């Protein structure tokens, strides 16, 4: 139920934000969706994917190519971006999930970099380094407030879907596989099939996020597929806490704010990112969300520090 209040708050917030604020908030929601898709894998199945950018980028490029080359209306490209990313996840997942978790991680990175290289070189199709620009969605979709609500709606849809997934037999099967894979298989759970489906869902949602980001930024470049884009989902998740349902979304917001501040002052954002990740891994693996939960437990009544949502 707290989830509902959270969304209502976001809806009410809309008209109060400036143009810049709306763009930032939209980006936070998109990154939040992207990170939550990553966390579906990380939290529920234990799979650590370093290649989510592959699907983020696939979704973005699908949207961009359809709009720029095909003349499609922007909203119609979204289901297709979703599908293309799902397909990509099916292929990559099929090859990657068969092995132990560590191999999986490296493989997802490798495939994502491959896609990046292809996008970079295939000038005729993707425009290479120049990317695909001038992607302003026409009409009402081009307006920041409307776009914000559209993104919020899709974010809510995604979050609700993930929430329902967690409570479904499928979600439990994933947890069973994560807790004790052999035992889960012994009760008839097809490990490969379940993990693959989770990977496809994760990829599809990431693709949707990528398409939304592309329209927000009015352009799509190969760096949508670059490994640092995968790192963003991971960092947002670790920052917010993987164990808390909305943790990745919270982490995404904090991450974005940090980036705005840091990039305004220095060009060494990856260094800052790496140090932050290092500190989180070493000292705060539960993330901000996890910390907030722990503190909320220690304060039985009265003040709750900060709005941690969920």
């Amino acid at each position, binding site marked *: 139920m707290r989830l509902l209040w959270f969304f209502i708050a976001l809806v009410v917030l809309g008209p109060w934000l400036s143009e810049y604020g709306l763009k930032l908030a939209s980006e936070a929601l998109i990154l939040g969706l992207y990170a939550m898709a990553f966390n579906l894998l*990380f939290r529920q199945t*234990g799979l*650590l994917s*370093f290649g989510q950018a592959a699907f983020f980028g696939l979704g973005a490029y699908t949207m961009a190519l359809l709009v720029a080359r095909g003349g499609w209306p922007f909203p119609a490209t979204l289901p297709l971006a979703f599908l293309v990313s799902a397909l990509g996840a099916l292929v990559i997942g099929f*090859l990657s999930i*068969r*092995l*132990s*978790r*560590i*191999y999986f*991680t*490296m*493989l997802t*990175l*490798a*495939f994502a*970099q*491959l896609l990046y*290289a*292809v996008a970079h*070189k295939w000038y005729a199709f993707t425009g290479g380094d120049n990317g695909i620009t001038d992607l302003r969605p026409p009409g009402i979709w081009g307006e920041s407030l409307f776009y914000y609500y559209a993104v919020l709606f899709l974010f809510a849809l995604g979050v609700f879907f993930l929430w329902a997934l967690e409570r479904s037999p499928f979600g439990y099967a994933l947890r069973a596989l994560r807790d004790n894979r*052999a035992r889960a298989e012994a009760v008839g759970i097809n490990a490969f099939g379940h993990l693959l489906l989770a990977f496809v869902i994760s990829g599809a949602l990431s693709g949707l996020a990528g398409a939304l980001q592309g329209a927000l930024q009015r352009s799509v470049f190969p760096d949508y597929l670059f*490994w640092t884009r995968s*790192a963003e989902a*991971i960092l947002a998740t*670790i920052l917010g806490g993987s164990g808390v349902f909305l943790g990745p979304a919270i982490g995404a917001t904090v991450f974005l704010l940090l980036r705005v501040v840091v990039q305004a002052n220095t060009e*060494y954002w*990856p*260094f800052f*990112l*790496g*140090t932050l*990740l*290092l500190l989180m*891994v*070493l000292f705060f*693996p539960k993330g901000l969300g996890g910390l907030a939960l722990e503190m909320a437990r220690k304060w039985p009544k009265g003040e709750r520090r900060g709005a941690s949502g969920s």
Partner: protein
Amino acid sequence: MDLGFYALQLLTGLAYASTLFLLSVGLSLIFGAMGIVNFAHGSFYMLGAYFLYAFTRGQADGFWGGLLLVLATGFVIGAFVERIFIRRVYARPEEYQILLTYALLLIIEDLVRFFFGTGYRAFPMPQAFAGPLFLFGTPFPSYYLFLIGLAAISALLLGLFLYRTRLGAWIRAATQDREMLEALGVNVPLLYTVVFGMGIALAALGGAALLPMQAATPGMAVDAVINAFIVVVIGGLASVWGALLGAVLIGLVQALGVLFLPEWAMVFPFALMALVLLLRPWGLLGRPPAVRT
């Protein structure tokens, strides 16, 4: 097409494979003996190149000394990193170990950008290799032979070390059963430091050795670790011969790819890896995993 042309491509592939071997064998050993996926492995490869540049101030006559210095520095830095960072996450789930080395990757990449800038750092060919050699009438850089020789000698020395020394035997045992090693009273933490240091030193050497042929850039770290991983997947884990075989296969596939389908040459290593994964997932020279009970 004449024989010389093909021979040149083959040689290029082997030279490339040599640096790949130096890069990958460390990753393989570290993963095999310690169970750590060192995401930052390519970063140390990159550091090797940059350090050679820095130590020699870009002057070719410092090459040999620079190489040795890079090897030693690599070992020290590797040991340092292991002690300070890697050690803290042994008890954690492997995902967090990976995230840690990933963080190091990010940090090192920007450190390099900070100290050396984002441009290329090129290094002139050392005097000894200035002139070309000839094979079937086609000239090729004599440096290729140096690279191939370096890799061969390293493989030999590494093999001797692993199979003829006590420390090597312990390292090999660690790739099979770490707990037993502890029970036998071996100082496992120290062993880990040594293994990590060695792996990093080799990677750094590989990067440094590559420098006269290919300029260093901050972006080479990620490509390097991915290539290293492809080699390890193909060749099999914790196997020096596997790393050698994998590196040679990738080098040749890359070289042949450039010959026949230059636009798509970069896809071939991935395709080969996918093939190995489908048919023999534990690598060509790896051990199939035993069932865990």
